[in-house]
């Protein structure tokens, strides 16, 4: 009997101890948990709620799905979605293969490796605002750097940002320039992680360098490409800074480079149509969420 009581007291204190230690750990996490509650959970739910109201920040009227109806029926929204996807698609299409080829080359050389890494990575650490400012001049049709180069090489020049039909190409060029270094760094890290034994075995079997690259390197990089692809999509869908600097919130000329986030900004802080802006936000969020789920599936993030 006595022994049993002692046991239960022990169990009790052990339980208290466990509870106390849980509390301690939650104290460690307090800043992060506060951050999640105030700056993630609340705003996400609030966006969702606001998307069902007509609101200018002070007066709110419930209108159900009215905002969504207006957004999905407006050409401005579909134009912004088209621009966003268009720019992101070509950014990925150009930057990932180019970055991978350059990374493979850097990986093969012995000298100046880190110099090349630094040079290619430099645009990525520069703020995109400063980069956009520089590219306003680089892409200038009459005196800009690129048209001058094209002219020297005897290639046709382009009006770039001053014409709605070519302005997206200008933004893509800037986006590729800014992102290329990131692609190279990630590719390099993963290239170096491929087991050298695979190459040794292939060498013995008489495979050429090109064959090794095609049949060992590329298949082993599949996960990396998936990672870059999804990361690129997620950041591409949030594109705003460069088009804001180059064409204002309206993405001029004639809205040819207005992105979804720019539309949110224009509606929310230009027109104070918080309900409409929130509906667009929710739609954007759903698109990003879909890509994130795909991301977790493809890259099999290890926890």
């Amino acid at each position, binding site marked *: 009997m006595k022994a049993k009581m002692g046991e239960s007291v022990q169990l009790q204190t052990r339980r208290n101890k466990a509870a106390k*230690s849980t509390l*301690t*750990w939650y*104290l*460690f*996490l307090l*800043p*992060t*948990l506060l951050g*999640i509650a*105030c*700056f*993630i959970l*609340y705003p*996400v739910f*609030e*966006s969702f709620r606001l998307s069902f109201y007509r609101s200018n*920040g002070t007066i709110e009227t419930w209108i159900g799905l009215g905002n969504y109806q207006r957004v999905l029926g407006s050409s401005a929204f579909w134009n912004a979605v088209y621009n966003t996807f268009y720019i992101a698609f070509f950014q990925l299409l150009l930057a990932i293969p180019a970055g991978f080829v350059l990374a493979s080359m*850097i990986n*093969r*050389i012995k000298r100046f490796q880190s110099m090349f890494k630094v040079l290619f*990575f430099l*645009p990525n*650490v*520069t*703020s*995109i*605002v400063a980069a956009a*400012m*520089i*590219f*306003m*001049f*680089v892409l200038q049709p009459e*005196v800009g*750097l690129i048209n*001058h180069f094209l002219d020297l090489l005897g290639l046709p020049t382009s009006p770039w940002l001053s014409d709605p039909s070519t302005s997206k190409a200008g933004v893509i060029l800037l986006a590729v*320039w800014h992102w290329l*270094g990131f692609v190279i*760094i*990630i590719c390099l*890290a993963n290239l170096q*992680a491929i087991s050298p034994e695979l190459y040794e075995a292939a060498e013995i079997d008489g495979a050429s360098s090109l064959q090794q690259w095609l049949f060992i390197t590329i298949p082993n990089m599949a996960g*990396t490409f998936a*990672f870059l692809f999804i990361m690129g999509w997620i950041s591409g869908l*949030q594109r705003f800074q460069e088009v*804001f*600097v180059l064409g204002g919130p309206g993405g001029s000329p004639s809205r040819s480079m207005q992105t979804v986030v720019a539309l949110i*900004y224009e509606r*929310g*802080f230009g027109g104070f149509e*918080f309900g409409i*802006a929130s509906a667009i*936000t929710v739609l*954007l*969020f759903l698109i*990003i*969420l879909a890509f994130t789920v795909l991301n977790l599936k493809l890259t099999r*993030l290890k*926890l």
Partner: protein
Amino acid sequence: MNLAQSQQANRRVAHIVIYVFLFVCALLVIAPFVWMVSISFDRMANIQVPFPPSFIPDLFSIFNYELVFENGRIFRAYLNSGLVTFGSVILQVSAALLGGYAFSKGRFKGKKLLFLVVLATMMVPIEARLIPLYSMFNRVGLLDTFWPVILPSILYGLGVFLTKQFFDQIPDSLREAASIDGASEFRTFFQVYAPLAGPITATLIILSFMGNWNEFVWPLVVLNSEQLQTIPLFLASFSLENGTALAGMTMALATISVVPIIIVFVCLQRYIIQSIALSGLKE
């Protein structure tokens, strides 16, 4: 010439081709920077952009820089960026160290689920929260101060993730020894584990510094007064006001804004590249 020799010669040629190709590509990548610096030092550049483009200024002078500094707003913007970045980095790094330690060493209910939530927060961009956060800070009267820019930094998902990975590699035996000596969890953290966390702390400071220094969208929404503008906001407003006129001043501003980040990057590039590659989820 036998087979081995010819193979070696082939390889040497391939190497030279690779070097030349990389070199040309690198030149193309840094050409905009070089051009920017060249225009910024060209005396005539505010009247017309020098043409044909050259990488050496036609009439070298620091005139454009004098104009920029006369205006004075650049100093204010630097100070503002410094204040905001300093506050955000402190918050981000301390919250990440504490959180990452708890997720690595803690045994408590809901750990796995909470960690998943923290990771998921990385996927919720500021753009998806602009309007409610704006209204929230508006209601408490903090708009047009630095608080709304700094406070949200307290949540740093990537930092928590990287810190957890780091502490996972440090053995638990240290904790056991400390707990036998009767140290509390907080003492164990501050006196045993935090001093070992130098490398990850440096990484977080670098990443957080670059991120906050370049932050644009959220400050643009909450900071309206001209005297509160951070560097990116100041650059954007200058650029929107002047377009491609005043090339010399614009490029001088761009150069001034890019210099500190390039210095930091070149000095710390090994760690930056390493940490980016690591946070890029190396398989």
